């Protein structure tokens, strides 16, 4: 299956939770915000929300800015 992650096509073997996806990407869940198909996912729901084929995911964090 394939998802669009931060604007790029990414291959996944199977659907997985946001928690799992972040783990796979080695991203600390406490410092990012996640948007799933244009819906923002509250942090406490990372475990239950499942990313499936064709889904669009945005993972953002803070970077230097003015």
């Amino acid at each position, binding site marked *: 299956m394939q998802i669009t*992650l*931060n*604007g*790029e096509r*990414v291959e996944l073997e199977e659907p997985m939770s946001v928690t799992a996806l972040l783990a796979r*990407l*080695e*991203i*600390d869940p406490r*410092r*990012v*915000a*996640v*948007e799933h198909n244009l819906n*923002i*996912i*509250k*942090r406490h729901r990372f475990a239950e929300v499942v990313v499936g084929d064709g889904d669009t995911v*945005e*993972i*953002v*964090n*803070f*970077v*230097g*800015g*003015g």
Partner: protein
Amino acid sequence: MTDTPFVIAGRTFTSRLIVGTGKYSSNAVMAQAHQASGADMVTVAVRRVNISDRTRESLLDYIDTSRMFILPNTAGCYTADEAIRTARLGREAGLSEWVKLEVIGDERTLFPDNEALIEATRVLVKEGFIVLPYTNDDPIACRKLEDAGAAAVMPLGAPIGSGLGIQNVNNIRIIREFSRVPLIVDAGVGTASDAALAMELGADGVLMNTAIAGAEDPVAMADAMRHAVIAGRLAARAGRIPKKMYASASSPVEGMVGR
């Protein structure tokens, strides 16, 4: 003379200088500059995590969040929708309702699109955001932002990163007079005297990034800005002497020897 506290949306800040986190040569230098600035609020941008780069250290590792309040911005957004979406993501990432709202109208000047800015402010305020909008020095736009529920108005002194200093002192003075919310001069400051002037014109605070991060010695400039903002604030309240075309002696004119 003790100053009134610097309060935005019920939150009190010890410093009237707000600094950015962009464009530093290194995070270590940034951390020192933040320390020197005395600021207790810093702005950050919201961007996609770089998936490919695992090693990328986190900006937050270099910000003392026990002391510093994090203000996410919507820099780079060119529509109200983009800005609203980015603000919502910033809230999740930062777990605070505050946002420095930017809706840019043009990429060469980075001037705000006030029409879209006011619209985005209305939406975000309804959602419970504490909105600090970056705008231009238009008193009418500032009043509308205030009416839309902005927690402060943040007119620019000059284009972002230009270092030109305050181009229109009269407008800043007028905005101060019209506003019932804090006035923060955001962008355009180039050096210490610019920051002092901003405060002398009645600004409640100054927000800057490039002037510090882009200086040859960012830590020294941060220290300079800390002093400048304090100096300008004190001067604004101390009641300066009026300007006169001619001189007035500071030493007595009587008692001269041999007259």
